[in-house]
């Protein structure tokens, strides 16, 4: 089972504070490598809070933890905190206004048995 979602990124003060102290800490990874899903999408995927999901598109793929939002219903729309994890999925072609499509990530999400993508793995991908 997988679902196609649009992902919008946002800023979170707790994650930001953690990233200011260290981009390489477990705490920063735990706060960043998370996707916030609507209840309906969580049910469609058969996952509960803390379960791992694979988020994949034509750019890259990452494994992150799923979490249910307490927001109003927004099936088909997911949220991720801005970080190197979310940016792995971001296209670098520019829109008409010459800015990258930071709010226009689309990706397929599916349950995963793998561990959350480590920052060391991301660094290797960037250098490959």
């Amino acid at each position, binding site marked *: 089972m997988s679902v196609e979602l649009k992902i*919008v990124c*946002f800023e979170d*003060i707790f994650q930001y*504070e953690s990233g200011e*102290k260290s981009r390489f800490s477990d705490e920063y990874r735990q706060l960043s490598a998370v996707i916030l899903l609507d209840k309906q999408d969580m049910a469609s995927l058969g996952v509960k809070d803390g379960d791992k999901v694979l988020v994949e598109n034509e750019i890259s793929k990452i494994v992150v933890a799923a979490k249910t939002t307490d927001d109003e219903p*927004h099936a088909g729309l997911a949220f991720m905190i801005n970080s190197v994890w979310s*940016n792995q999925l971001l296209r670098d072609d520019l829109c008409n206004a010459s800015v990258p499509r*930071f709010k226009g990530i689309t990706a397929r999400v599916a349950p995963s048995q793998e561990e959350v993508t480590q920052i060391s793995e991301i660094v290797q991908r*960037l250098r490959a």
Partner: protein
Amino acid sequence: MTTCTGCSLLCEDIELVLKTGAISEAKNLCRKGQGHFQALFTERTKPMIDGKEVTLDQAIAKAAEILKNARTPLLYGWSNSTLEAQTVGINLAKKIGAFIDDTSSFCEGLLMERILNGKIPTCTLDDVRNFADTSVFWGTDPSNSHPRHLSRFSYYPRGEKRQKSYEEERTCVVVDVRKSATAHLCSNYYFRVPPDGDAEFLESILTVLDGKIPKTGDKKRLIELGTILKKTEFGVIFPGPGMIYSMQDKMDLFEELVARLNEITTFKVIPMVGHYNMRGFNQLMLGQTGFINSVSFRGGAAGAATTHGPEQGVALAAKSSDAALIIGSDPLSALPFGTARALAHIPLIAIDPRRSLTTDAAQVVIPSALSGLEAGGTALRMDGTRISFEPITESERLSDEQILTRIMEAI
């Protein structure tokens, strides 16, 4: 007392007690600022070449060598540097014929350009505190991005003409794609827009202001919003990245809305700039080149053919450059995968107080002093107010300005 350089509010009332290895006491410091200053004691950079520790002189000499030999160097970052450092940086770009760009080219630049060119009216945050009765946070969540915005300026404080409590005198409107922390605070006037739906929402407001019924959206609530805006005495819109990414090339429509509002009452706009001196860089660049960012000085200072456009912005310049100097920024973490990967494959010089993905990938790392704590200087707050600050602790590390000056001298 010091100034926090953790965001573009540049709070000047920070009281700190520093002990060995930690901040032992802090007054007026928000969580974001706490993280920013705590970084003083964690993961500081050291002078490095190819992953090996070297002397500062060696690192600076190597940086100069890389830039001197580069055919199409890129100088990127700048939003976390003082005006003094930015000035030297622009001169360095002219001298070596480099691309120069800052973080505004992929966030607030689209709006800042219109503000600095006088196309959209603006005011100071002190005006907001003293006069504003309506604040509209559009595609931004200051509770997370600028934690003291509401308490110092836009919602809670009493001001010259706002002597009563915020419940009586101020209205806070939030337009966002998600119910953010700020939207929870202002839940009566939270307007949810779908992704990429800001232009349509804006057109509906224009329709309501013209006394007509909007064709799309919650008509009742849109009319309610129109009434709030019309009754406003002094309103301020604070657009954030969410609005700008959604509007993209339709910013003319936003300009039209602000003009229409000003036919009815007074409305100003202050962009929710993230980094502490992004506006400073934009203003300096505009004064020297006529453009706020994304400029190439290819040809050098003598025959400088200044060009500007997407090709000169970091997203594309990263792919056409053969070396890059990155200052006070972590593009390998913050930029799209393809751009970050392109940067990771060319010789990088990273000037930064602390370790990041970019410093880890850099051929040359030059440690710098942390502005506001270890280095003084001047910066422009998000509203353009000039703020000067002095260091409050001694440091062996050079400021950005000193490092750039030494690189210039060595080229």
